[in-house]
Every structure is written in C-alpha cells, then in structure tokens.
C-alpha cells in the first residue's frame, strides 16, 4: 500500500490525523472546542453507520425472508416496533413485552453458557492431576486446586471473615491479587500496542516514516 495519491484519500488521511490529534488534545491539554468538534463529528458518523447497517440488516435478514413467505419474521418487526411506544404514557407498557422477551433470552443464554463452562469445567480443571508430572506440575496442581478453593471462600456473603475463616480468606485474597496483577500486565501490552499504532499512523501521515 503506497501513500494515498488521490486528493480525496490524502484529504482523508489528514482528516483522520487531525481528528486523532483533536481527541488527544483533551488528554494532553484539556477539554476544548476542537475536541468537542471531533466528539460530535465522531458521534454523528457512528450514528449514520449504525443506522445504515441496521437498515441493510433489516432488509437482508428480516424483510427478505418475510417476503419469501417465512411468516415468523413478522414477530421481530412487531416486537421491535413495540419499543417505540415508550414516549406514550397510555401504551408504554407494551415495550415491556419486548424487554421481557429479550431478558429471557439473555438469562437463558448466560446461564446456559456458565453452567458447564464456569462451574463444572472449573471444578474439573482443578481436580485433574498431572500424569507422570514433574515436581513443578504437582506444585501447579496444588496451587490451582487449593488456590481455587481459597479464593472462592473469600467470596462469601453470609460468613464473616473472622476466626477460623480469617486466614484462608486472607490467603484467598492474596491469590486473587496475583491474578489481577497478571491481567493488568497483559492489558498494558495491548493498550500500548494500540497507542503505538496511533503514533505510527500520525508519523505516516506526516511522511516522517513510510506508509506500510
């Protein structure tokens, strides 16, 4: 990909760079009119993108099958339109039908997804001893198994963390903090990669380094 040659494209690259700097002016300086302009521009374009995509999705995935005689596709249209009763006092309860339906699916999907993956698999993973393992493998087995039990003990609502329950939950909290530290470290990598990507983009637009 050479540096854009079309004037419209060059303009685009510069607009992108300008808006990027406008957003960062908030961070590197403070809230200002340039940031506000970038903010509203971004929101406007995103609204347009989501409306356009919704229209084509409704066309391709609801209207098209409906006109092919798949009559069940009338249901999302009705339920979707019921959301629009919201501003009208007398009928706004109708939106609640749609909400109840969506919430039912949400809970069904979430509970279904966590029963095996978050409960059974986690227990199973904690009780699978290594086969012909090294001492380190056995240490890991104990670390993960007992660690899991201790951290879970920390998350209780009806037992106070006192007396005999104090030390295990304390230990559980330390193990939890270790896990959070690892997560933090990994996220730093991703975020910094992203930020360096923006710096690279600016350097490219200003022709300080070559376009990829």
């Amino acid at each position: 990909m050479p540096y854009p040659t079309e004037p419209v494209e060059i303009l685009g690259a510069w607009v992108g760079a300008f808006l990027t700097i406008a957003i960062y002016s908030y961070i590197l300086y403070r809230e200002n009119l340039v940031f506000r302009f970038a903010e509203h521009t971004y929101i406007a374009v995103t609204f347009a993108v989501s409306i356009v995509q919704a229209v084509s999705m409704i066309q391709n995935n609801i209207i098209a099958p409906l006109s092919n005689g798949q009559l069940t596709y009338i249901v999302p249209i009705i339920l979707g339109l019921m959301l629009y009763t919201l501003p009208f006092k007398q009928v706004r309860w109708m939106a609640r039908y749609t909400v109840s339906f969506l919430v039912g699916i949400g809970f069904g999907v979430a509970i279904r997804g966590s029963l095996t993956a978050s409960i059974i698999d986690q227990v199973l993973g904690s009780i699978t001893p290594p086969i012909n393992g090294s001492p380190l493998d056995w240490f890991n087995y104990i670390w993960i198994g007992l660690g899991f039990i201790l951290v879970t003990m920390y998350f209780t609502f009806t037992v106070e963390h006192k007396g005999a329950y104090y030390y295990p939950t304390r230990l559980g909290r330390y193990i939890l903090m270790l896990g959070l530290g690892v997560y933090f470290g990994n996220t730093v990598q991703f975020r910094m990669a992203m930020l360096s990507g923006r710096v690279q983009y600016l350097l490219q637009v200003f022709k300080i380094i070559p376009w990829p």
Partner: protein
Amino acid sequence: MQTALMLSVQSILIEGRGSSLIVLLLVLVLFYAAYSMSKSGRPPKMRRLIAIDAIEEAVGRAAEMGKPVHYTPGISGSLSSWQGPQMVASISILGYVGELCARYDVPLIINMAQADAIPLMEETLRLSYLKEGKPERFDPKMIRYQPSQSTMVTAILGTFQRERPAANMMIGGLYYESVVIGEAANFIGAMQIGGTANTHQLPFIVATCDYVLIGEELYAAAAYISKEPMQVASIASEDWIKFILLAITLLGFILEVVGIPVVSSFLKW
C-alpha cells in the same frame, strides 16, 4: 414406571451436561430451603456490601456540592446477549441511585450505548422518581444514548469536563472503557464506585475506583438493597451451593490423585 421415566430422560440428555443439570436443580432446592427458613423467621445474615453503602454517601456528597451524579452501565451488551443479565443488574442498581438522586434533588446523568436497554432503563428511573413522590422531576433526557462503545467513551470524557459530576458510578458489563472513564473521573476528583463481572476489567476498577463490586457481588447488589427475605435467602443459597461444590472439589482433588475418578466421571456425565 419411575425407571422408565429415568431412562427416557437419560436418552435425550445431551452427553456431558448431566452434572450441570444436577447443579442447577440443586441450586433450586437450596434456594427453596433457604427461602422457607427465612419465612419461618430465621433469615440468614448478610455481610455488608460497602460499595452499595457508599452509593448513598456519593449521592449525598453530590447534593452538598450541588453537582450531578454520573452513571454508566458500560457497553455491557444487548439484553438478549450473555452480557444481558449484567445490564439488568446494573439497571437495578441504577433504580436505587435514581431514588437517592430524586430524594436529594441531585441531577443524574447516564451515558449508555445499548439501544434495546433504553426502555427498561427509562421505566426503571420513572418509577424511582415516582416512588420518591417526584415524578415531575424525571426527565427522559437524563439518559444519553451513544451509538457505540468508543463514542460513549468520547461523550463521557466531554461530559466529565463540561458538567463536572461529583460522583461517577460505572457498574455493569465493562470493557475497555473502564480505565478511561475511571481515570478521567479521577481527573475531576469525582468519587467512584465500580462494579463488573468481567474479570479482565477488574484490575482497572480496583485501581481507579474508591469502592468496587466484584463479579458475584454485582448480581447480589439488588438483593442487598431490598433486604427482602426472599432476596437474602437467595444469597444464602449461593453460599451453600458454593460450599457444597468446594467440598466436592476437595474430595476430587484428593481422590483423583489416588486414582479413584468418581468425582471427575460424575462431572463429565
């Protein structure tokens, strides 16, 4: 008769999901037991959720300073997605925040980005204001919808500097927005309460917020606020099932090593 029924159930049960079904049924039984116990006058005690207690403090502070409270459920995900329950839990807590804001006449600003959650959010808040006897103070414009995660972040950055809320609450299915919102709120000295069940964001709400709801606590918050017997009973049954499964884990942890795979074969059933 009974065995015939058992066999027919067995034949349609999907392999590897039997143990999940047992766990789910066990949860129901324990819930019923805890509920009967608390109805018969022996309600279980629930430990304090400091983050929830802090909500009133935060709203009170905003009232003293004459500044608004900012609330966001994060990006969360649509109601029908697996993130939906986090959104529902968040809106439930928002209802409580709304009541307090109505009570102390504190302006409330909500930035959110899931369109299908708007009706639930609006209705919940309308009722909060009604409950406090100030239905006329409810203004649907307090809900500010933004069309995507990143636009929501931009809008929140702007909101913070322009309207300087005294408190920021970000509770729900948070993603990358957590650290940005958290730091930007720190910048303006807002008191912060965070909460999420998304493990990958926990380090950031722990780092940026004054009070946090971690994972399970997010779902339990509504029960904690209402303190109704059924709600508290359900929390107790959560603890019971956890202890039962921890006992099973410990048992399996030892038995597997000596070569008796009863627990793992049950779990794989």
